[in-house]
Structure formats: structure tokens, C-alpha cells
């Protein structure tokens, strides 16, 4: 009963300290400290900064994925959307646009539209999200055959280059972008009626619909957001690598799902927060980097990677019981 009598502030502090996002963050910090002791260079500021920058790509993809998963779906087309974004940006370049902003907007509008089509399939055709987005990924592969290599022009987009390489005030632009998106996403998720509808839809779509949640438009919005953030991630990854290529998005499908779940969002929908996905994304790139510097055969490295994820999941990943 003591919990009731605590001050509101104390209760709040305790709630934060025992929350999944905080736990995931604590694990990240612990892994960083342990790894820096083992390998001096790992803990260098530059390296940690690089890890966070890499985490930004996963984090962006996982932002949309978090929305979709909380809304009770899943988006298996994010990898293909990242690739489409990175590949088609050079195709959508205009001479008249010296900043490159117009092309970026055009590409992101395209990927958002792709997401909305996913939403249409899920909401109107009532195709299961996994099937709809898998089919969308297949469509996009066909699209890529047509557009890939279509442009002989390297991506010389100033904005994209800036995003991938600039460090205003010593902070990589990609991280700044991620911070901005995170603030927006967290606000949208937890401080707007739209966010409340998504949680309701994910926890119990029937009850949500009977409570007046507009299921169709909310679904469209959710998948649209996922297309949007995956498109942004594509732009960022294009900037970081200087060149898009087919397959550039591939690593981000499972990574985005893993980041979401490691961050404590329930894969069954209705519960979770992007605040957990953020450390989840950083955790994933951290583990990957850790594995890279370990000298072992590919088989052992793979085993080590899997075991680490499993171990960390044990620390943070209990599913809440339902029903």
C-alpha cells in the first residue's frame, strides 16, 4: 500500500525507472561500458557517435514500424521502401532545385503513398498486414527491376549529401534528423488523439470501432507514416553511402522489428512506445559492432549475435500476459 502514499513525483520516478524503455537504455549503457573496457576503441566518443548515427537509420524505419505494430499490424515492406527511396531519388532530380529539397520531398511523398496503398489493402480489402506488405515488397521488387540503374547520374543532391555527411555542432545531421523525428513521433503517439486511437485500435479493433475510432482513415495514416519514415531512412542511408543500390534497405526489415520488440512494444499490438524503440535501435547496432570486432569464424559470430539478442531479451523482454 506504500505505493499509494508516496508522493506523486516519487511514483512517477519509480514508474520511469522500472519502465521498459528505461531498462533497454540501461542495457545499452551497460553494454557500452563493458565493451569499452574490453576494447578501448569501442568506447571512443567518435565510435559511439557513429553507432548512434547508424542507429538513426534503424530508428527511422522502426518509428513507422512502431506505429504499425502498436496499431496491431506489421510492415514487411519497409526494406523495399527504403531501397525504392534510395534508388529513385536520383531519378527525381531537377536542375531548377539547387537545394535538393524538392527531390527529397517528392521521394518521401512517393514512399508515403506506397504506405497508404498498404493501408488501403489492410483496411479496405481486409488483407492481413503481413500478406499485404509482403505482396507490396514483391511489387516493389518488380518496380526496382524497372528503375534500378536507370539513372547514370550519381546522387548529387546537396541536401542528401548534407544529411549523410554534415556535422553541425559536431553532431551528425542524421542524428539531428532522428531527434527531430523522435520528438514528433513521441508527441503524435502519446499526446494527440490520433495516438490514442492507434493504441485503441491495436488493443481491440472492434471495441475501438464501436467507440467511434475511424478505423479506415487511421489505418491509412499508420501505414502512410511507416512509408514516410522508411522513405526518410532511405534518403539518409543514401546520403551516408553516397550511392543507392538494390538491397540497400534489406538489413532494416528484421532490424526494425527487433528494435520495436526489444524496446518493449508488444508485437500483439496495443501496448508500447517509441521511447523504447530508440534504445532498441541503438542496442542492435551496438551488438552488430561488437560482433564485428570479435575475431571468430562466421559461424561462431552468428551464434554469438543470436545469443546476445536472446540474453538481452531475457533481461528486458517479458511479454505481459493477456486475455
Amino acid at each position, binding site marked *: 500500500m506504500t505505493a499509494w502514499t508516496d508522493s506523486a513525483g516519487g511514483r512517477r520516478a519509480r514508474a520511469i525507472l522500472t519502465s521498459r524503455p528505461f531498462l533497454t537504455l540501461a542495457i545499452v549503457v551497460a553494454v557500452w561500458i563493458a565493451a569499452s573496457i574490453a576494447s578501448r576503441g569501442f568506447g571512443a566518443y567518435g565510435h559511439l557517435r557513429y553507432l548512434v548515427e547508424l542507429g538513426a537509420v534503424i530508428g527511422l524505419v522502426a518509428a513507422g514500424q512502431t506505429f504499425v505494430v502498436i496499431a496491431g499490424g506489421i510492415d*514487411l515492406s519497409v526494406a523495399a521502401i527504403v531501397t525504392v527511396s534510395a534508388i529513385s531519388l536520383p531519378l527525381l532530380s531537377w536542375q531548377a532545385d539547387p537545394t535538393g529539397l524538392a527531390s527529397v520531398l517528392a521521394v518521401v511523398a512517393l514512399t508515403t503513398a506506397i504506405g497508404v496503398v498498404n493501408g488501403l489493402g489492410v483496411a479496405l480489402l481486409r488483407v492481413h498486414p503481413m*500478406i499485404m506488405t509482403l505482396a*507490396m515488397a*514483391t511489387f516493389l521488387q518488380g518496380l526496382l527491376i524497372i528503375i534500378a540503374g536507370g539513372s547514370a547520374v550519381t546522387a548529387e543532391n546537396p541536401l542528401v549529401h548534407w544529411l549523410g555527411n554534415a556535422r553541425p555542432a559536431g553532431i551528425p545531421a542524421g542524428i539531428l534528423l532522428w531527434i527531430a523525428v523522435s520528438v514528433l513521433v513521441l508527441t503524435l503517439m502519446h499526446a494527440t488523439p490520433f495516438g490514442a486511437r492507434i493504441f485503441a485500435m491495436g488493443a481491440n479493433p472492434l471495441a475501438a470501432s464501436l467507440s467511434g475510432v475511424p478505423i479506415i482513415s487511421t489505418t491509412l495514416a499508420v501505414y502512410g507514416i511507416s512509408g514516410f519514415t522508411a522513405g526518410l531512412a532511405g534518403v539518409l542511408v543514401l546520403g551516408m553511402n553516397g550511392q543507392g543500390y538494390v538491397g540497400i534497405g534489406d538489413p532494416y526489415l528484421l532490424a526494425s*522489428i527487433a528494435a520495436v520488440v526489444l524496446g518493449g512494444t508488444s508485437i500483439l499490438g496495443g501496448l508500447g512506445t517509441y521511447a523504447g524503440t530508440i534504445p532498441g535501435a541503438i542496442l542492435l547496432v551496438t551488438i552488430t559492432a561488437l560482433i564485428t570486432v570479435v575475431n571468430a*569464424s562466421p559461424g561462431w559470430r552468428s*551464434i554469438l549475435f543470436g545469443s546476445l539478442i*536472446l540474453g538481452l531479451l531475457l533481461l528486458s*523482454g517479458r511479454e505481459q500476459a493477456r486475455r
Partner: protein
Amino acid sequence: MSIIPYARADGALYWQVQARRNIGVRSLFLVVLAFLIAYAVLFPGLFTVSGFAKFTQSWFPLALVAMAQAILMLTGGISLAIGATVSLGAVIAATTMGGPLGIAGGAAAVALAGLGIGAATGFIVVRLRLPAIVVTLAGSFIIGGAALLILPRPGGSIPAWLSDLLAGDTPAAFVLLVVVVLLWKLYLATPLGLSLYAAGENPVGAYRSGVPVDAARVAAYAISGLLSTGAGLFVAAQTGSGDPVIGTAFTLNSIAAAVLGGIGFLGGQGTMRGALAGSLLLSLMISVMFFLGFTPVAQYVAQGLIIIGAVAIPQFRKVQQ
């Protein structure tokens, strides 16, 4: 308790229940049938023994992994490690069967590995209450890593006569599939097997009714592992060798087949016959599109449309009714 009268036994119940289960997948059956007919028209050689044999051989491993995925999804689980487990089964088969263990020993090793991995995964997911999707994602790296340790590059061998037996010009794969399906029906007729549905859909209620919920779920993972390494063994026989990454694509395909077949994600929804039909559709689609002369771009687009269509059309029919 004499007031509870004892009605005359009615032997038809089992078959009535079985017939009921077709209802949800009828339209998928129709779609599959249409593709089968199209295939037979495009390729009359299907009706020769070897034509039929080859056709079932390409379907068989996908059918097995679809079952492996479906049984998990029925309990409310899922596995992203199916592909890696198939690979592991293949490399174990290819490294043991030609050696001192022999065919029987190799097959036993494959089966044990499948059961063991499945049971371990099941234990972790069920008893430690961790989300299956990430546990099996981690598992896919561990299992895939083990496959790489056993066979760092494609190689190994399967005795030629076994390859010819399983994947030659006889419909052995079809016979095997029938056997597997019969075994599944048998399992589903045991109390533990039938508990799958209850454990998946309403675990709390099932537990209160005295159902061994955890045991049913762990058993499902073990069986799933067995089916996956079994598929690996078959792939090894079909190809005459082992490849440590041969199974990768089976993970997503198994999910696609199961969901296409009407298996739901929340557990307890769907039937194995649906999952099998889903896998058959995926397999048929490839051949039919080939004979229709589709270019790769058209193949991708058509494949997406067929998958969506097979799921959406029944929905439309439902709405219209």
C-alpha cells in the same frame, strides 16, 4: 450422477467436425484448383509419373515448412528460424549420411536436432514468456551459425540411391506428404494435439479446463522443429548435397503460405489443410507463371496480385453474403 443419461454413441462426429473445417478455406481451395487446372493445361506432362513426381518434389519442402509454421501460429506463436532450421537439417544430413552414421543414423541425427531445437525454443518462449518473434529471430542466427560451423561452404553428400528414391522419378515425395498429413491428423486426434487450438486461442480458459497448455505449446515447437529439419533432409536429398544457407527463403515463404491458408496470428484460427493449400498455391504460381511466359517484372507483379487476391476475394464474398 444418474440423471446424466448416456446417449447412443454417434460415430459420425469426427467426420462432421472435419467437414466443418473446410468452410473457411473453400474459396482458397477453388483458387488452388483453378491454378492446378491451368498448370495441367499448360503442361500436360503433369499427368506422367515423372511429371507428377517432379511437381510434388518442388512443393514438398514448402509444404513441410508451411506446416511447421502453421502449427506454431495455431498456438499463438511464430518462428523466424524456420529457414535456418531447414539449412541445419540439410547440412546435418549431408555430413552424416555419407559417413559412419549411415542413412539411419543421419536421419536420426536430423530428427533429434529438429526436436531438440524446437523444444528448446518452445521452452524459452513458453516458460520464460518471451515474445516468440524475437526469440526465433535470435534463434535463426544461432541455428544458422551452427549450420555454418558444420559446413562452412556448400558440400557434403547424400547417397545417390537415397536421392533417387526421394527425389527421382517416383512420386515418393507425394507419398511422404500423405504420410505426414496422416500423422498430423493422428496427432490432432490426441488430447495433446487437440489442445493446440485451445492453448492458442484461449490459454487462460484452457488452463482452467485442465488442459496442459504449456506442454501443448512446447510440443508444437518441437514438432515444428522436426518438420523443419525434415524439410532440410529432403532438400539435401533433392539436391544431393548440403548448403548452409539453402533454407533462408523458407522463413518468409512459410509465413506467407500459412497466412494465405487462413492461419491467424492470434492463435487457434485456421486449419492445416489451409496452410497446405497456401503452400501449394505459392509453389504452383511459380510454374504457372513460367509457362505463361511472364517476364521477371510481370512475375513480381503477378505474384503480389495473386497473393493479395487469394486473401481479399474471400473477404469480398463474405461481405456480400
